[in-house]
C-alpha cells in the first residue's frame, strides 16, 4: 500500500473513532459529565458582541445542544476553530472586527503586467487602501517557462498576462519603494518551474536593498508546485525527478534561512481551471501535498519543521461542493499529518489561499462576472480561507484593467467589512445540516480517489500513467459538453442570451516599444556580466552534478546571470521535460 492508502485508512479510522466516542458519550455517564463540563466551560468563554442594529451576538457560534453525543460529535468531528481536526477554521478567530486591528488581512490581489515598473505602479495603486502590505505577483509566459525576453519567438509574449522578469535588476524594480521587511508585509509569487531562480533573485534583490541581515525577515509565498504543473498547468522545464529535487533543495534552504517564508503553495487552482471537478481538485491537491511531505521526510527533513511552511491554494467556483471544500481539505490534511506523519499541532494545520474561478468568467455580458465572483467569494469565506484573491470581471478579455481590479478588491471589502456576515461571529454557517451532509459526501469521494491512485502505486506512479491528466481532461470535456447541451446553465451564454455585441473593453497590453525596452535591459545586463557569468554558471553546473543544494548556489548565480542563462545551464545537466498529452 502506498502512503496514500494509509492516509485514506487513517481518515476512516478517525471517523470510526469519532462514532465510537459519540456512542461512549451516550452510554458512559462519567464521560458524559466530563464532556458537559468541558462544553459549559467553552460556552462561557465565548465573548459577546452586537450588530450595528443592536442585536446581541456571540463571538463564536456553537451548536445549541447539551447532549453529550452531539458535543462529542462536534468537538471531535468538526473541532473548535483552531483545534483538531480543523474543519471549522485553521485559527481561533478570523475576519472579526477585532482581528482586523491586529493587522492580519485575508485579501490578496494578484497583479502583474508589462515591465517591472508597470507592476510596481499597480501594486502601489492596489495597496493604497490595504490595512497591511500584501503583494501578489503574476509573471509573463517567458518568465514562467524560464526563458529570457530575447529568446527567439517570445517577443509578443513579453509582459503579457504578467510581469517580465529576466534578472535580479528587474526584481529590484518590481518591489521598489516597498519595505518588504515590515512585519505586516507579505509577497506572493505565482511561479513554478523556475521558482528557485526567481526566489533567488528576490533574495538577492532584497540583500542589495535592505542588507543581508534583514533577509531573514522576508515573508511570503512562492508557488513552486511542480506536481500540479505536470498534472495540469504544463509549465514544466526539467524532468520530474530533477524538478522535485530543485524544489526540495529550495524548501530545505528556506526552512532555516527564510523562517517566515512559505516555499511551496500546493495548488489545486490550475487543476480545477484545467477542468477537474471540485472533488478531483481536492483529491489531487491533497495527495500532492502528502507527496511533498513524504519526499522531504525521506530526505531527512523534520516534518515539524517543514510542515508549518507548507501552504495550500484552491480554486473556488460556483459548484455546490465549494461550500465545504476548504473545510474537508483541512480535516483530511490534519488527520493525515497527525496520524500518518506524526506531525505536531502546528504542522497539522492546512493554511489555505483561495482564488475565485477564472474559468467561470465569460465574455458574453461580462458584467455578470461581478456577481459570479461575489458568490464565489462568499463560498470561499464560508470555508474560512486564510487569504483570498477575487478575479476581475474583465479577465475573459484581458489582464485586469485598473477599474475592474479595484472593483474586485472592493467586492472583498463589501463582504468582509460592509456586510455583517463575517464581522461579528465566527462560524455563523458551520454545522448546518446541508453543510454536514455535503462534507461527508465530498470527503468520501476524495478518499475514493486516494484509493484509486493507491492501486496505481501512489501519486507519482499514477502521474507517470497519466491518471490525473486523463481524469482532468475527461472532466473538462464533460463540463464543456454540459455547457453545449445546456445542462449547465451559464447566464448570457446558453440561457437568457441577449445577443448583445461584445462590449468594447479597454485592454491592458504591453506595447512593442516596452517589449523592446525589456530586451535592451536584458542585453545590457548580459554585457555587464559577460566576464563573470561563465564562471558562475560553471559553479552552478558543478553543484548540480555533485548533488549539492542547488538553491544555495543560485542565490549567488543570479547576481551575474539571467533567468534564461540559468535555465539553459540546468537543462544541460539534467535534461528536458518530456511532455505528456
Amino acid at each position: 500500500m502506498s502512503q496514500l492508502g494509509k492516509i485514506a485508512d487513517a481518515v476512516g479510522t478517525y471517523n470510526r473513532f469519532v462514532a465510537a466516542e459519540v456512542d461512549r458519550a451516550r452510554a458512559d455517564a462519567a464521560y458524559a459529565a466530563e464532556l458537559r463540563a468541558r462544553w459549559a466551560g467553552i460556552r462561557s468563554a465565548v465573548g459577546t458582541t452586537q450588530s450595528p442594529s443592536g442585536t446581541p451576538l456571540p463571538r463564536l457560534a456553537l451548536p445549541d445542544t447539551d447532549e453529550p453525543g452531539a458535543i462529542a460529535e462536534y468537538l471531535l468531528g468538526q473541532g473548535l476553530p483552531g483545534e483538531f481536526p480543523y474543519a471549522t477554521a485553521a485559527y481561533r478567530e478570523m475576519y472579526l472586527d477585532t482581528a482586523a486591528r491586529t493587522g492580519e488581512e485575508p485579501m490578496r490581489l494578484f497583479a502583474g503586467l508589462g515591465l517591472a515598473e508597470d507592476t510596481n505602479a499597480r501594486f502601489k495603486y492596489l495597496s493604497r487602501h490595504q490595512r497591511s502590505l500584501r503583494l501578489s505577483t503574476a509573471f509573463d509566459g517567458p518568465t514562467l517557462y524560464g526563458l529570457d525576453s530575447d529568446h527567439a519567438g517570445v517577443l509578443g509574449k513579453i509582459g503579457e498576462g504578467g510581469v517580465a522578469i529576466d534578472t535580479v535588476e528587474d526584481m529590484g524594480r518590481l518591489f521598489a519603494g516597498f519595505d518588504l521587511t515590515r512585519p505586516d508585509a507579505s509577497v506572493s509569487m505565482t511561479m513554478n518551474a523556475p521558482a528557485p531562480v526567481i526566489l533567488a533573485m528576490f533574495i538577492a534583490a532584497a540583500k542589495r536593498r535592505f542588507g543581508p541581515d534583514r533577509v531573514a525577515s522576508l515573508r511570503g509565498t512562492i508557488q513552486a508546485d511542480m506536481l500540479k504543473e505536470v498534472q495540469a498547468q504544463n509549465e514544466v522545464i526539467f524532468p520530474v525527478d530533477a524538478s522535485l529535487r530543485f524544489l526540495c533543495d529550495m524548501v530545505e534552504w528556506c526552512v532555516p534561512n527564510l523562517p517566515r517564508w512559505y516555499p511551496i503553495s500546493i495548488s489545486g487552482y490550475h487543476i480545477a481551471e484545467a477542468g477537474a471537478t471540485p472533488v478531483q481538485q481536492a483529491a489531487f491537491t491533497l495527495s500532492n501535498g502528502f507527496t511533498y511531505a513524504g519526499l522531504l521526510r525521506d530526505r531527512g527533513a523534520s516534518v515539524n519543521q517543514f510542515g508549518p511552511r507548507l501552504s495550500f491554494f484552491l480554486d473556488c467556483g460556483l459548484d455546490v461542493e465549494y461550500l465545504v471544500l476548504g473545510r474537508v481539505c483541512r480535516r483530511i490534511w490534519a488527520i493525515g499529518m497527525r496520524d500518518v506523519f506524526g506531525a505536531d499541532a502546528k504542522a497539522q494545520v492546512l493554511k489555505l489561499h483561495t482564488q475565485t474561478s477564472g474559468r467561470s468568467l465569460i465574455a458574453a455580458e461580462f458584467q455578470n462576472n461581478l456577481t459570479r465572483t461575489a458568490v464565489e467569494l462568499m463560498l470561499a469565506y464560508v470555508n474560512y480561507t486564510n487569504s483570498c484573491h477575487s478575479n476581475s470581471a474583465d479577465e475573459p478579455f484581458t489582464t485586469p484593467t485598473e477599474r475592474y481590479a479595484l472593483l474586485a478588491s472592493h467586492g472583498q471589502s463589501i463582504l468582509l467589512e460592509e456586510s455583517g456576515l463575517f464581522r461579528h461571529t465566527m462560524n455563523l454557517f458551520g454545522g448546518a445540516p446541508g453543510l454536514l451532509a455535503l462534507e461527508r459526501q465530498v470527503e468520501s469521494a476524495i478518499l475514493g480517489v486516494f484509493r484509486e491512485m493507491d492501486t496505481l502505486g501512489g501519486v507519482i506512479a499514477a502521474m507517470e500513467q497519466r491518471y490525473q491528466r486523463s481524469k482532468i481532461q475527461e472532466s473538462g470535456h464533460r463540463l464543456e459538453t454540459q455547457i453545449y447541451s445546456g445542462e449547465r446553465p451559464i447566464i448570457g451564454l446558453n440561457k437568457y442570451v441577449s445577443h448583445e455585441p461584445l462590449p468594447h473593453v479597454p485592454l491592458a497590453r504591453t506595447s512593442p516599444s516596452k517589449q523592446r525596452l525589456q530586451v535592451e535591459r536584458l542585453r545590457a545586463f548580459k554585457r555587464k556580466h559577460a566576464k563573470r557569468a561563465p564562471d558562475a554558471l560553471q559553479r552552478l553546473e558543478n553543484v548540480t552534478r555533485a548533488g549539492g543544494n542547488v538553491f544555495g548556489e543560485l542565490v549567488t548565480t543570479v547576481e551575474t546571470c539571467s533567468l534564461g542563462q540559468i535555465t539553459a545551464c540546468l537543462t544541460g545537466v539534467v535534461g528536458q521535460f518530456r511532455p505528456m498529452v
Partner: protein
Amino acid sequence: MAVAKTPRRPAPLRILTAVPICDGHDSAVTTINLELARHGIEIIYLGYHQAVEAIARAAVQEDVNAVGLSSYNGGHIVFFREVVAALRRGGNGDIPVFGGGGGTITRADERAMRRQGTDRIFFAGTPLEEIVAAIRGYSRPARPNPRFRGDRVLARALTIAESGGRVPAVKRTGPGRSFVVGIAGPGGAGKSTLIDELTSRFLRHQPAGRIAILANDPSHPGSGGAILGDRVSAIYAQDDRVFFRSLATRGSLTGLSAAAPAAIELLRRSGEFDLILVESVGVGQESDPFRSFGGGQPLVDATLFVLAPHYGGLIQLQKIALLNGADYVALNKCDHPLAKVAKAEIQARLDQNGRDQRLHATTAAKHFDPGVDALFSALAQRADLAPAAGGERPCRLEVTP
C-alpha cells in the same frame, strides 16, 4: 521494388493543432481535438509551449490541410503572424492558419490577424458544428504540386500514398542508403519515448545525417478520425534533420497503416535518410506487422521489439510471437521493481530461439540512459552508420521544445 498501391477510400482531413510558445493552456485544445476526431478528422497534436519553427516544420512534414492554434495568454497577434510568415517563407503559404483564444482575442485583434494572413478566428461561444463545418472547408485534393520544395514534396507524396492515389515518383534528393528499423511492442511499453531517445543519439552521432520516423497510431473505428499525439513527447524531433510523419491506421488491423509499405519505400527512395524508424501501434502476441506485407518480403531491415516488465509472467511471454522474430529486444522501464525478474525470463525465452537476439535493458524515460546508448550503438553498427569526421557534435537541441 514496385511501390505497393493501397486501396482507395475517402481520405480524412489532417489538421495540426498546437498551443503557442510560453502558453500551457491546453484545456480548450484537448476538447477541440476530441470533438474534431469524433467528427472523422485526423488531428496531429503538437502540444503546448510550441515555437513558431516547430509548428511550421510539423505542418510541412505532416502535409496538413490546416494549422489550428489555441492561444490563451496573449501575444497572439505577433505569434499568428510569425507562423504564417514561417509557412510562407518555406513556400508553404497554401496551408491555412486558424485559431481561437476564448475572449482573449478581440474582434479588433481578429481584423488585424486576418489582414496579416490568419485565415479565421473562432470566438468564444462558437457552436462546435460551425467549427467542424469551417474546418471541413479546408479539404483539398491530394495531388503533387510542382511549387513545393524540400520536405513538403516528400510529405505530399506520403499524403497521396495515404489517400490511396497513384504514388508519384520522388526525386532522389540525398545520396544516402537508408537502414529501416521496425519497432513494435505492446501499448505502454514506452516505444515513443525510446524512439525519441534513439533520435537524440542519432543527432549527436551523425552530425550531418537525417533520420525519419513513421509513427503509426490507430484511427477511431467508429468515426474514422484520430488523435495522433506522438509528436507531443518527441522532444528531439524539433530539428530539421528529423523528418517525422504520423500515420493513422485508417481501418488497417495489421498494426501499421495500409500505406506504410509505400511510405517506407518513398522514404528509402528519397535517399535523404540514414536511418528510418517505423513505429507500429501497440501490438504483441498476434503477429509481426513488419513481415505481413509484400508476399513475405520483409518491409524493414531489422526489427526491434520493446516491452515493459509488467507483461504478465512466463506464460504470456511464451505467446509473444514477436519475440521469435525480432532482431533486437528492448526491455524498457528497467527502473521498475519487476525488471530484474523480467530480464532473466526474457533472456531464457530468447535462448530457446537459438538465434543471435540481443536483449537490451533500457530506461528511456531517464535522460542519458546508458542502456539506450548501448541499444543505439548496436543499431548504428548494424546500419553501418559511421561517425562523420570530426567526431560527435552535440545535437541541436533548444532549451524549449
